[in-house]
């Protein structure tokens, strides 16, 4: 009897939630109910993402609370791996991701351009800035400025560069002190690093001076943010260039050695891009997920728990790109989602750029 009662209670407790949460979100067309019902019927959603599972935990839990009938399988892999796995699995015709979510904007744009994405006009698209979506297929989900990171113990406050020009000056004046102590991405090993530097070259006419200054201090090239952060924290390196701001913010919370600045002349902003696979096994669950991540609720959780600024225009408070915009103003240069991202996936152009970069570094 006791057991029966417990089951009853559980059912009763779950009922109002199931009703409340599986309902059409406010502002969506009534026909959306059909999408939710179909999603519940599909019952399972596979997401490939480049963002750490640990960081995403609150978002994933909240989604499960809202849509308990959709079993969410969240796989975190690095960006190249994500691309490789997805195209080979798709070619083999087997099970693959329903949703692809990656910080490698160029690779995502290539997949979209190569026709791997499903068209989906999400009801949330009106809340996104124009640069953050392309062809009703791929959507920016975060607003992440690129920062300069430094070691607080070893770089005196007066030396911390606030702009790209100040960084060049610092390195040319204090060449001896910073020799071997500056680090940035190895663009041959990191697609993200490559993307940042090519965007730099586009935005900043004096970029190649910076590259030469890096060469003069014998810059240390690393393949990952974590590797750079670790070495800056330990004092092996002092300044790290082009590091994702979200990582810097998170690490600075627990590591007293880490300081960071968003340059005030210009700060690149990237966004983690998401699209639904054309061959998705659960297209409706995928739609529900995309809408959820872009919704106010999803965006707030991302911003609060993962230090990923919201890409939406209508979120107030310190967590939004909007807020950042008021602080840094026109200095923020979001990388637009679109065919422009494809330029350097052309082998010849890419190798040319790498060559030019290496020459500037004196390698």
């Amino acid at each position, binding site marked *: 009897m006791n057991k029966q009662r417990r089951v009853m209670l559980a059912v009763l407790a779950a009922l109002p939630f199931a009703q409340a949460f599986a309902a059409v979100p406010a502002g969506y067309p009534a026909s959306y109910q059909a999408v939710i019902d179909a999603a519940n019927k599909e019952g399972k959603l596979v997401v490939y993402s480049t963002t750490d599972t640990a960081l995403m935990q609150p978002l994933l839990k909240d989604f499960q609370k809202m849509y308990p009938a959709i079993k969410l399988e969240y796989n975190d892999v690095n960006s190249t791996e994500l691309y490789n796995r997805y195209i080979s699995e798709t070619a083999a015709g087997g099970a693959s991701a329903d949703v692809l979510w990656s910080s490698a904007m160029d690779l995502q744009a290539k997949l979209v351009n190569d026709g791997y994405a499903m068209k989906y006009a999400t009801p949330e698209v009106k809340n996104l800035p124009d640069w953050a979506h392309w062809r009703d297929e791929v959507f920016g989900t975060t607003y992440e400025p690129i920062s300069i990171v430094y070691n607080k113990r070893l770089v005196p406050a007066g030396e911390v560069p606030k702009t790209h020009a100040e960084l060049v000056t610092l390195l040319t004046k204090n060449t001896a002190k910073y020799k071997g102590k500056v680090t940035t991405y190895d663009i041959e090993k990191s697609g993200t690093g490559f993307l940042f530097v090519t965007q730099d070259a586009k935005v900043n006419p004096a970029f190649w001076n910076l590259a030469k200054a890096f060469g003069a201090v014998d810059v240390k090239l690393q393949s990952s943010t974590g590797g*750079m952060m670790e070495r800056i*924290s330990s004092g092996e390196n002092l300044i790290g260039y082009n590091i994702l701001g979200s990582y810097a913010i998170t690490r600075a919370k627990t590591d007293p050695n880490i300081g960071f600045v968003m340059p005030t002349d210009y700060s690149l902003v990237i966004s983690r891009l998401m699209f639904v696979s054309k061959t998705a096994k659960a297209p409706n669950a995928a739609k529900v997920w995309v809408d959820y991540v872009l919704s106010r609720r999803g965006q707030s959780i991302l911003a609060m728990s993962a230090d990923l600024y919201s890409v939406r225009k209508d979120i107030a408070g310190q967590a939004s790109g909007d807020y950042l915009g008021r602080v840094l103003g026109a200095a923020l240069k979001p990388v637009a989602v679109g065919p422009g991202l494809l330029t350097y996936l052309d082998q010849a152009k890419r190798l040319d750029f*790498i060559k030019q970069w290496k020459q500037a570094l004196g390698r």
Partner: protein
Amino acid sequence: MNALARYGLSRTMVVLVMALAVFMPIGLVLWQSTLNAPFFMPNHAYGLDAFRFIFDDSDFWSALKNTVFIAVSMLVIAVPLGGALAFLLARTDLPCRRPIELMVMVPVFVSPFVLGFGYVVATGPVGFYTLWVQNLIGTVPWNVYSLPSIALIAGLTHVPHVYLYASSALKNLGSDVEEAARVTGASPFEVARRVSLPMVAPSLLYSGVLVFFLGFEIFGLPLILGDPEGHLVLASYLYKLTNKLGIPSYHLMAAVAVCIIGVTFPLVLLQRYLLRSANRYIAVKGKVTRQKRLPLGQWRLPALALVLFWLLVTVIVPLSGITFRAFVSFWGEGVSFAEAFSLHAFVEIWNQPNLLRAVLNSVLIGVIGGGVAVMAYTAIGLASHRKQDGLTRIVDYMVLIPRAVPGLLAGLAFLWVFLFVPGLKEIRSTLISVWLAYMVVWLAYGMRLISSALLQVAPELEESARTLGASAARVSKDVTLPLIRFGLLSSWVLMFMIFEREYSTGVYLLSPGTEVIGSMLVSLWAAGAVDIVAALSLINVALVAIGLAIALKFGVNLHE
């Protein structure tokens, strides 16, 4: 049908399965290297573009140059030191021989990736020992990221490989010649150099080729130590190609792999030839009546100091570095241990399902995977046991082939096999995929364990059973297998340790469900989660230590 009749059903089946497991991935690599795009993309065409690209790439040539430099250095460092170590431990009255003999094996069973990482945190520019030395003498006399350092570390960590072969040969020598030399006034050093070591020259030569060959496949150490200054070797160049063009360049990677195989396969054949002639050479050693340890006299303590110094540099420094790093959340100049102490990394492993799974999977693949691998190797071993026919010769050569393929690429090839061979897709996301790849990559090693166990069974025992009318299967089941029981058990322990150690083969097979510590380490290192890498490395070393302890308890001969 003809073959079936000649060799019997079960033998033919075993060999066929083995051939599939060996040739499918290799075949894919060879085929891929002749295409200009991933083989599964609709727009691929045949051509030698891939080779043209890498031969035009200056990185390839510098990687090749570095690889040759490292391989030669390893040879020059490991062979004399390994020979000397073997002489000291096998032939002389060096103090503390037992514990040293055990410690010597540590670099063989600890993953080079873990060791490399240990060197970074212990002796990198702001490593624990670096800061300590800097405080002590004001300057740091080494740079662990330089090419000579990488070569030196690679050489020192491969000393045990030479030691293994040299010591087992030395143990079979009689001590009469050494005594004669000693009586006529030779110092222990001269005895080693002019008498004992020349007598085991074939073993030294063999292990020299082995070390040189391992130098061509070296990946973990240069991946970690070579990164900051951009020193590439062939395997890390191959790894770098994953990203260089932004999109996957499988054809280029396959072309590099073909180049590596082009060097390693002849070396493998040379090894096989040398091993045979080495055995012949040892066979004429004459009667081993008694062995007496050579007294080192006044050299006892200096010799011990030398061996301990080697142990300090190759085992204690990196392992203590890892241990220390696992318990601090950040570190560097001016940071005190008390301020940075934290169990955060271990808590994180406990809390993150994929990390916890990696630890559990590693245990599973070592214990169960290792056990099943021993069974499979035994099946192959029995298929060619006491039968000198064509099939046995095929098996002999087939065993050698995977040996020549770097683990990193073998893993990628297996990924393709699992994706594109119908019926295997289901296996892909299970641990079985990793296990199969491990088993093929370590085929040669495992087969050596099994065949040395099988060789210990005297033929007359099996023959008498046959004479009494037992079938071949019955003989295997009731005579051979029970007799090699202990050999199989010790092979199991050794396979356990080897599977714990493996890191590169699983890299491309890594997906939810197939995480093992080894491949997680490479992936986490790439993502920069250094404290987790340290904690996982420590767990990995602990697992290997458990394996060693079990091996010791059961008296397993680690020197197989």
